[in-house]
Structure formats: C-alpha cells, structure tokens
C-alpha cells in the first residue's frame, strides 16, 4: 500500500509542473514537502451525470404518466378519434371509480371478479404441480429428456388458445374449462424453467456431491433443486402471466360468469370506458399474482442478488 502511494505521489509531482511553470516548480515541489496552497489541495472533483439520469424514479415515472394522459386527452378533445373508439381520460376515470365502488360495495362485479380469481389460482396451482413434476422428469432423467421433452416442445409450439373450444367441449361452460386453459398455457414455462434449473448446477458441485457419496435423491434435493431455484422462479413468473391470459381467453371463448365475460358484454355494447376500466382492474390482479411470485422468490432465493427490478435505486 505505502509503496503504491509514494510512487503515485512521485509521478503526480513530476507531472503537475509540466502543465504549469516548467523547471522551477518541479524543484520547488521536490524540496518543500508541503508545496504552495494550490498544489497541496485535495483533488476533489464532481463527476458529471447528465440531468436526465439524475431525475428520481418517482418523478420520472410521474412525468411519463402525465405526458401519456395529456396526449390521450389531446387526441380525444381535438376529435382525432371517435369517442366510441377511444373515450376521454375523464370518462375512463369516472368509470374506474364506478367499477371500484361496485366492487367495494359487493355489487354484481365482485362475484365475477371472484370467479376469475378462482380460475387463476386453481389454474396456477395445477400448472405448478404438473409443470414442476414434468420439469423434474425431463431435467433429471435421461428418459424424460429423450422421450418426453420432444413432445412437450411440439405441444408448446402449438397455438394453445386454439385448444379452448376443446376444453369447453370436454369440461363445459363452467369454471373447469377456464382453469384447464389457464393451466395449459402456464405449464410449459414452468416445465422449461424447472428442467433448465436442474441443468444449471455446475460441474464442480456435481463432482463434490459425488465425492461425498450422495445418492441421486440427495443430489436432487440438496443441490440441484436449490441451485436451480432462480430458473424455476423465472418459469413461475412467465407462468403467472400466462395463467391470467389463459383464464380470460377461456372466458371470452367459453362464456361463464367471470370478469372476461363482463368485458365481452361491455365491448359488444360499445361501452369502451367500461372495457378500459375492467382491463385495468384485471391487470391489478395479474400484478398481484406476479408480485406474490417475486416476493416468494426474494424470501426463498435470499442469496440471489436482485437483478429483476429496481437495480438503479
């Protein structure tokens, strides 16, 4: 440390005079241990960060929001688009308040929302159970990788929404057909995440477990699954998004009494403000599910540095 320091000082005292008065200043610096005031001052300087990067998160988010609403308001009040196609922000907001009140007072929308919530929860639970089991089968056994994975990939490339009429035909117009479609869409990312997670354990860790004489089950439970948790949670997050899409698509195509049905009815009556506000409440549900998965991940995979969101705070 002290070595580096002295060489550092030496080179700096040799360089500084070069920019100012040559010769004389150099000898002065060499003779006098603490040189004249400006030479001895701390070199404190301010790093330049551009204005746009210094704006706090809350302010920049609010700014974008205001601009967006402003453009929206402008395009409707100037008559650029028909109010039937795009309602004003005010109308939409008023409808959001109406829907909010209806939900809070236990009006007819609350049971509809509850039905959709149930479809999402059951669908996600089913997707996790099936997806995790298949993921372990594919990721842990050679048989699974050779015999099961190709079929999974084949099914995954199909447009899964197209299966909705089949589910309705098999399971009826009730909640079951929606749960099935939601689970169907969410299962594949969980399979892939689990299988990828099991493959993520590095060679050293495998070798170490081998030297410790660990059984296959011990290796799976004590090493492969924990080290694969980040990938498994990535699969769960993608699945959480898919399960919402599946439930709503199921309601669009298979009727029922859920929130998707409310949207469909509102849209058929050209009640666009209602469609917008229902979508907003629906996205809150999706956000809640996603946040639940993320919060669980933070608790369970506590050693993983958070790189998903908010890394710039």
């Amino acid at each position, binding site marked *: 440390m002290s070595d580096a320091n002295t060489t550092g000082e030496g080179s700096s005292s040799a360089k500084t005079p070069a920019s100012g008065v040559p010769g004389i200043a150099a000898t002065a610096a060499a003779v006098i241990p603490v040189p004249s005031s400006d030479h001895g001052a701390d070199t404190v300087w301010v790093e330049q960060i551009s204005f746009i990067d210094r704006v706090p998160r809350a302010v920049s988010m609010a700014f974008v929001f205001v601009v967006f609403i402003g453009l929206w308001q402008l395009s409707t009040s100037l008559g650029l688009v028909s109010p039937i196609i795009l309602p004003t922000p005010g109308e939409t907001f008023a409808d959001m308040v109406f829907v909010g009140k209806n939900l809070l007072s236990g009006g007819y929308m609350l049971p509809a929302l509850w039905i959709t919530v149930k479809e999402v929860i059951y669908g996600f639970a089913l997707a996790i159970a099936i997806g995790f089991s298949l993921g372990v089968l594919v990721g842990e056994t050679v048989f699974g990788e050779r015999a099961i994975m190709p079929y999974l990939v084949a099914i995954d490339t199909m447009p899964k929404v197209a299966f909705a009429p089949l589910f309705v035909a098999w399971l009826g117009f009730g909640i079951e057909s929606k749960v099935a479609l939601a689970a169907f869409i969410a299962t594949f990312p969980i399979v892939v995440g689990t299988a990828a997670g099991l493959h993520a354990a590095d060679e050293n860790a495998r070798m*170490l477990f081998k*030297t*410790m004489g*660990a059984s296959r089950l011990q290796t799976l439970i004590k090493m492969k699954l*924990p*080290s694969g948790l980040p990938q498994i949670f990535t699969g769960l997050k993608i699945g959480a998004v898919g399960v919402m899409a599946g439930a709503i698509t199921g309601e669009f195509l298979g009727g029922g009494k859920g929130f998707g049905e409310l949207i469909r009815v509102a849209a058929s009556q050209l009640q666009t403000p209602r469609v917008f506000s229902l979508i907003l409440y629906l996205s809150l549900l999706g956000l809640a599910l996603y946040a639940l998965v993320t919060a669980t991940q933070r608790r369970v995979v506590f050693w993983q540095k958070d790189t998903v969101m908010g890394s710039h705070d």
Partner: protein
Amino acid sequence: MSAPATAASEPTITAGEAPTGEPVYQLGNVGKTYARNEVVALEDVSLTLNRGSFSSVIGSSGCGKSTLLKIMAGLIPPSTGRVVLQGRPVTGPRRDIGMMFQQATLFPWKTTIENIVLPIEIRDGRAAAAKAREQAQELLAVVGLEGFADVYPNELSGGMAQRASICRMLITEPAVLLLDEPFSALDELSRDMMNMELQRICMERHATAFLVTHSIAEAVILSDDIYVMKPRPGRLAEIVSVDLPRPRTLDMITTPKFGTTVDYIRGLLDKGEAL
C-alpha cells in the same frame, strides 16, 4: 463399496497417530481408455503414497492428471490396474478420501458452518451434522475463520471461501487429501499464503496429500515427491524428489536448490511438449 475381507493380507490400518512412511495409497498399472473415442487418457501408472507425505503431479494439459485424480478419488473406474487405499480397493467415492477443487463451491443457501458439515449431513444425516458442528468450529479456528461460522458464503472472499472448503474436506477426517489445483483461482499473494497454510495443516495432521497443479514453483515448495506426467498417452515420465527441509518457507524460493529443481522439472516438461 465395503470389502473388508481383502484387508487381511495388508498391514493393519490404525487411524490417527500412525507412523509416517507406511504406504497408504497404492496404484498398480492403472490405465484409462475412454471407450467412446478409444482415446488412451492414462497408461500404466504405478505409484505409492506414504503416510504423511506430500506429493504433486504436474504436466501439461491433456497429460491425464485430472483423469488420474478422478480415478484415485473413486469418481471414475479405471480401465486397467489396481487402486488400493488403506488396504481396501477403491471402487467408488469414500469417506477416507478428502477432495478439494479449483472452485470453493460453497452453497449460497447454507451458512459457512452448514457447508462444512455437509459431508456429514449427506452420509450420516442431519443429527450427526448437528453434532459435528463443534468439530467444524475447531476447524474454522485452524484456518483462521473464527467468527465466520454463521456467515453466508456470499460474504466471504475467494481465499476465505477456499479456507472454508479446506474445513469441509477435513471434517470427515480423511486419510488422503486429493487437491485439484485448489488455489489456482486465487491471486498470487493469497495463493502463497494458502500454500503455506496447507503445508501447516498437513504437517499438524500427518495428512497424506496429493496435489494436481500447473505451477512448478508451487509443486516444488510443497512436495516431497513430484510426479511429472507426459501426454498422448498420459503417463508418468519421472519422479523428482525435493529434499528441502520442512517446514518449507517462501524464502526458500530464492535458494539455489529450489532454482535447480524448478529448472530440471521445466526441462522435463519442455521435452514432453516436443514429443
């Protein structure tokens, strides 16, 4: 795994304060041919490790030293030959073999001490692992990591992590330590320090150590015997004995004897390249 009957003809194995010098680990005409591509990775290797000795194997990439170490550790079977540790043939991973790799490989979801008692947890279950904690604490003190027992590995530096992995290797009280370039991922200062630490630990415990390394200097400063290997096919070329006194110190690097030994080994390795 266990073959107690074969031990009858061998000298009795008493653990602990056994005299140094008695053979612990014997390899006879060990060879390995990978069936898939008919590559001869290792040909006719015979060596004997005596209790308390420190040996190194050195050679260029592809000379089969990793294959040799894996065979000795019971991780892969040899194609030919005999591998005997403490009178019992090695037919799989064993408790009396301790191993250490280039990467510390501590698991981030376990605290340092939980990582150290992991081999006990795997073999004897959680209850035994809990009992081994006391012993793990003592080992932490040996490597200078007191107070880090309940810290997660993310908070350890590279050198500290390797110290912890030394503890994990020692917790089962192995008869032989197989070291696969254990400190080559560390910076040079830490590496020298860890090498001296390793020597101290081996001397205190009368441990038998076998080190795979790329560094001639590291091999010379640590070893009693250096096995020089040559590639294609991987085989033992020469055994070089280092008669520097113990304990070795880093000052010895500047002695003429150290220099001539290093030069001699380098000469052997260069010849190996030309072949």
